[in-house]
């Protein structure tokens, strides 16, 4: 067992929840992609993408589910097609090509929703067509689907979409519960409960979103500090991720960060928790 500073050891003893301690999956496998999308790189809480639909459609849980699932479908399919066509699409013209693919799927979903779920279609309004310019979809196309194989990209889309859906449902649950006293249209709070109107309005969306981002940061930074083998970059480029202040904005490149004495990690130790 290597030398550690005693304060850190005491901190580790508290054994808080850390998902990466239990879940070890192969990189880019379907399961890893889905867990990555829901937890480690949750598009709303960790990547902070797709803020417009997040803030606008989370006034009720029903809307959040509709928005999340339709985005999931479009995200998975567009990721799949972009990945299939990634060798055909010229590098310099990739953005217009991606937009054509995404817009096709959005149009399909738009018509399907108009035909089969007209009430949800009318309550989501302009936000369904706006999925075309959703940052999550463009972001995953650019960052993942354009560089990986079709199956991986498809599951990345599913994972990211589910992460988006979960995030929307969480935010909408808090907003609807406090702002209306209901959950998914069901009366939850007692009749004497006075709804706090501001949570249904835009300021409430910002408040609840900020709260969730803070909680996620606490979990993930805490996990990074406690868990030797968890490394957001997957590369172990720096000496020590645990005490790095920039752990969640890691660029994957070494930083000139002064390593505290006694905590330096040598290559043969990586992955092994004493």
């Amino acid at each position, binding site marked *: 067992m290597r030398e550690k500073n005693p304060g850190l050891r005491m901190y580790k003893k508290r054994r808080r929840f850390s998902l990466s301690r239990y879940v070890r999956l192969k990189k880019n496998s379907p399961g890893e992609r889905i867990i990555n999308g829901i937890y480690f790189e949750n598009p709303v809480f960790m990547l902070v993408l797709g803020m417009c639909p997040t803030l606008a459609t989370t006034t009720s849980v029903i809307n959040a589910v509709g928005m999340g699932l339709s985005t999931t479908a479009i995200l998975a399919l567009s990721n799949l097609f972009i990945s299939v066509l990634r060798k055909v699409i010229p590098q310099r013209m990739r953005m217009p090509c991606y937009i054509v693919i995404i817009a096709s799927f959005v149009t399909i979903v738009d018509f399907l929703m108009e035909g089969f779920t007209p009430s949800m279609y009318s309550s989501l309004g302009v936000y369904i067509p706006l999925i075309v310019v959703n940052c999550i979809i463009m972001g995953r196309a650019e960052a993942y689907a354009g560089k990986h194989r079709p199956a991986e990209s498809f599951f990345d889309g599913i994972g990211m979409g589910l992460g988006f859906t979960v995030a929307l449902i969480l935010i909408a649950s808090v907003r609807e519960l406090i702002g209306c006293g209901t959950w998914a249209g069901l009366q939850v709070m007692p009749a004497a409960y006075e709804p*706090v*109107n*501001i949570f249904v*309005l835009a300021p409430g969306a910002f*408040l609840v979103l900020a709260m969730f981002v803070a909680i996620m940061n606490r979990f993930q930074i805490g996990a990074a500090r406690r868990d030797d083998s968890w490394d957001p970059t997957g590369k172990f480029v720096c000496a020590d991720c645990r005490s790095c202040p920039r752990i969640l904005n890691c660029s994957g490149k070494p930083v000139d960060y002064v390593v505290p004495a006694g905590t330096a990690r040598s290559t043969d130790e990586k992955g092994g928790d004493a």
Partner: protein
Amino acid sequence: MNQRFQVSSSPHTRSTISTSAIMFMVALALMPSCVAGVLFFGEHALVVLVLSAASSVGTEYIYEKLLHKPVTVKDGSALVTGLLIGMNMPPAIDWWIPCVGSVFAIVVIKQLYGGIGQNFMNPALGARCFLLISFAGKMANFTTGTGMIGIVTQVPATTDALSGATPLAYLKTGQLFDLRSLFFGNTAGCIGETSALALLAGGLFLVAMKIIRLRIPGAYLGTFALLTLITALLRGYPSPAVYTLQQLCAGGLMLGAWFMATDYVTSPITAMGQIVYGVLLGILTWVFRMVGTGAEGVSYAILFCNLLVPIIERYTRPVAAGVAGQSREAKRLMREKEKEAKRLKAADRKEKPV
């Protein structure tokens, strides 16, 4: 002797007055209006004031204990925030609403941004607007209990009942109310805002004790009075001067100008900045009251200007001694230097084979 010539970084002149002393003074200055509020609106007003102050202090204590931070309850800032929240409540409010407001003010607006000195807007006003948006019906209910001094509920010199909830809503129509009762404070309104007399006494006490300067309230009230006078003249209201005085005394303007706009944390520190801030407040309040559809606009005006404070401070930053005269010459030299550097760079690029 050699103590006098110590070398250290600025500030070199230090005041002996502490944060808790300042906050105690502010709380003391708020007392006349609190007493007036209790006299006008009865014991429920006292309950509201005590509850909001206690919940504000309690929230701060519990939050800092839970997060293992140094407990700053003793500096009194939470007490002042709580008092101001209580003074901003209508007299018939449910007891738990000011408590919710106090928790929001302390946790969300003050502590999440780093505690005392770090909040970007006035906590009490932030809480007031939070409650106004959340519980619009209850916050606009100005029915009152009976205090020791009865309040005026009808337009003096007529038999008309007061149209609108407060005198301010009545003034909005361009008619005159009774100036004496507006100044004394026995009219409908929030607990601590009605008595212009008590608020003026508190504000002037703070000025006399050099806790605040006249710049912000002076510029604020002056700008607002001037704009209102011009509007009243243009719209042809009866006796514009009296109308302006009534607008000054009605609603939350006095409370806002003397106690909320002058909050150290959320107002500019430069002299010029404070005047700009006051003038902006006056203009915005005039826009909200005289141009907009609502009757009251002091709290939104102050919150909006709170957000402008960093910009105001940036543009009113004082120039270091000796620099001002040289600035034009220095700028010209700088521009020439830049041009030269650009030319050299361009020449350099040309020489290199592409």
